[in-house]
């Protein structure tokens, strides 16, 4: 259910079957991009993008901006808690 790991899309394997090779912390695995491709998007359009991988499928895209926003939010929580 919850073992999703961040990985970077490094190579297209099969556009028709929407498969790409994703680098997950030094281990590379063929992953389906079926869940994250927008209409009309090709696997090649996502080269270099980061995704969350779960059981061989990219479930969602992640990007630096969103990650930074999340980190900032967490930082804000610290501040709110401490200042009351």
């Amino acid at each position, binding site marked *: *259910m919850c073992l999703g790991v961040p990985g970077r899309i490094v190579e297209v394997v099969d556009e028709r079957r929407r498969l790409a090779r994703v680098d997950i912390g*030094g281990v590379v695995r063929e992953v389906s991009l079926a869940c994250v491709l927008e209409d009309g998007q090709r696997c090649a359009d996502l080269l270099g993008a980061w995704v969350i991988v779960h059981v*061989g499928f990219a479930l969602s895209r992640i990007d630096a901006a969103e990650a930074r926003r999340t980190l900032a939010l967490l930082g804000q929580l610290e501040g709110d808690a401490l200042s009351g």
Partner: protein
Amino acid sequence: MNEKVSLAHGSGGLATARLVREVFVETFADPELDRLEDQARIVLPEGQPVFTTDAFVVDPVFFPGGDIGRLAVCGTVNDLAVGGARPLYLGCAFILEEGLALADLRRIAESMKRAADEAGVRLVTGDTKVVPRGAADRVFITTSGVGVVPPGLDLGAHRLRPGDRILVSGPLGDHGAAVVDARGELGLEHDIVSDCQPLADLVEALVSQVPVHALRDPTRGGLAAVLNEWAQASGLDLTVEEAAVPVRNAVRGLCELLGLDPLYLACEGRVVAAVPSAAADAALALLRRHPRGREAARIGEVNGAGGTVILETPIGGRRLLDLPVGEPLPRIC
């Protein structure tokens, strides 16, 4: 000679003799083995003789970085070495599954000879049995080994003392990770290979210069198993700093992906050492100077009475590092 092992090869007659001669005797090339007697004469130098035995059933038989033969030799050599012994002689009994390719058996025997030479031990006696298809998984090997501990050396859990530092000789989990994915059925590309290697030379370098208290090799069950056994045997608490435990990036990545914990994965070429705190720096430096210990690290210490293993997590929490439960299986959740 036939391509595959048949029941005739185990019956004790002509076929057996040919198998033993052509696969084992010629490959192992040992003068004592050449005598083809039922026992081997051995010579032991001065010191405490020690004896060990181990069985190897690894599946698959060939894996990245090694095979069951290399594993059998190194595993037995290392069991002797962690007692401080100089390993001298090995004997091995093979249980072969009917249908095993003879080419595979030769490959295994050659690998054993290479490992034995690397470890400086002699393969001097053996046995071969054949069982019907399905009664064994290709090949099982039972190895026994004899060595001698130099006079005055006494290693073991009974020597552990509060304040001792715990060191490991290199990154953990390489073998376990390599075997989990050895069949390639998980579709993962990586460069993880088993760390399977003989360690007698590394151990000798260490114990000859540092007053080591205890040594173990973290095989089945990994570091967690060894530390728990030490904690239980000594009645002392052990603390490990998780962030200090060396693990290769690819092994970490594979573990993240499959939901495995490197602390429970087997190593076949690492030692865990407990040394007095005053000697810890020297021990670490010594290990790192040795080719088999370049990535050695200090990972924890022995505390007071207790008998449990406590892990300090990377974010500063603490948890118990329990004994593993069964073989590590990939999980999704």
